[in-house]
């Protein structure tokens, strides 16, 4: 059981680190949001699973499941709101033939 808990802790924190590295490395806001939302919430869910396996009490397990459920219900809603405003502003810039935003460049 210790091996499983240690593996869950390592994988969870590695997923969180991968999310942050993706936030640095990816070129535009939509792909940065893709990295931060999915990998970040999966890392936190793995850490909460490790905590639930470690304590093994009913109240703590229910609380961990509650936090995981809250994360997986609210992260897509927030990402959908942000993606909606990014996509609508990009579409407006395309239809009005405006120049692309100069501060959005590839590989910065």
């Amino acid at each position, binding site marked *: 059981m*210790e*091996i499983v*808990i*240690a*593996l869950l*802790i*390592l994988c*969870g*924190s*590695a997923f*969180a*680190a991968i*999310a*942050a*590295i993706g*936030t*640095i490395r990816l070129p535009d*806001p939509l792909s*940065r*949001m893709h990295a*931060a*939302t999915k990998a*970040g*919430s999966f*890392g*936190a869910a793995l*850490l*909460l699973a*490790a*905590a639930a396996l*470690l*304590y093994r*009490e009913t*109240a*703590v397990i229910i*609380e*961990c499941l*509650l*936090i995981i459920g*809250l*994360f997986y219900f*609210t*992260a897509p*809603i*927030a990402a959908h*709101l*942000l993606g*909606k*405003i*990014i996509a*609508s*502003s990009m579409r*407006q810039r395309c239809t009005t033939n405006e120049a692309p*935003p100069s*501060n*959005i*460049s590839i590989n*910065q």
Partner: protein
Amino acid sequence: MTFENLIPLSINIGYIFLSVALIASLYRLVKGPANVDRIIALDLIAGLAIAISVLLSIQTGQSVYLNVSLCLAIIAFLSTVAFAKRLERRPQEIWK
């Protein structure tokens, strides 16, 4: 071979990973070319704070720290929605 040192070792390695992730997302928060990037970085920082409080709960054996992460999850969602609504009303601030 005993495995009693395995969990503290992995907790320390996890702290190192999470610190690297915090520094990386702080870089994106400061530099981020658009305001949307800053909101994304703030959301990620809130998730990392939740992960750090869960690690603290595992390390100290106090399950009270899980309440902190529950409150942080709610507050992070509400703040992200509030920032998104503000940017939706002022579209000229999105790419600044």
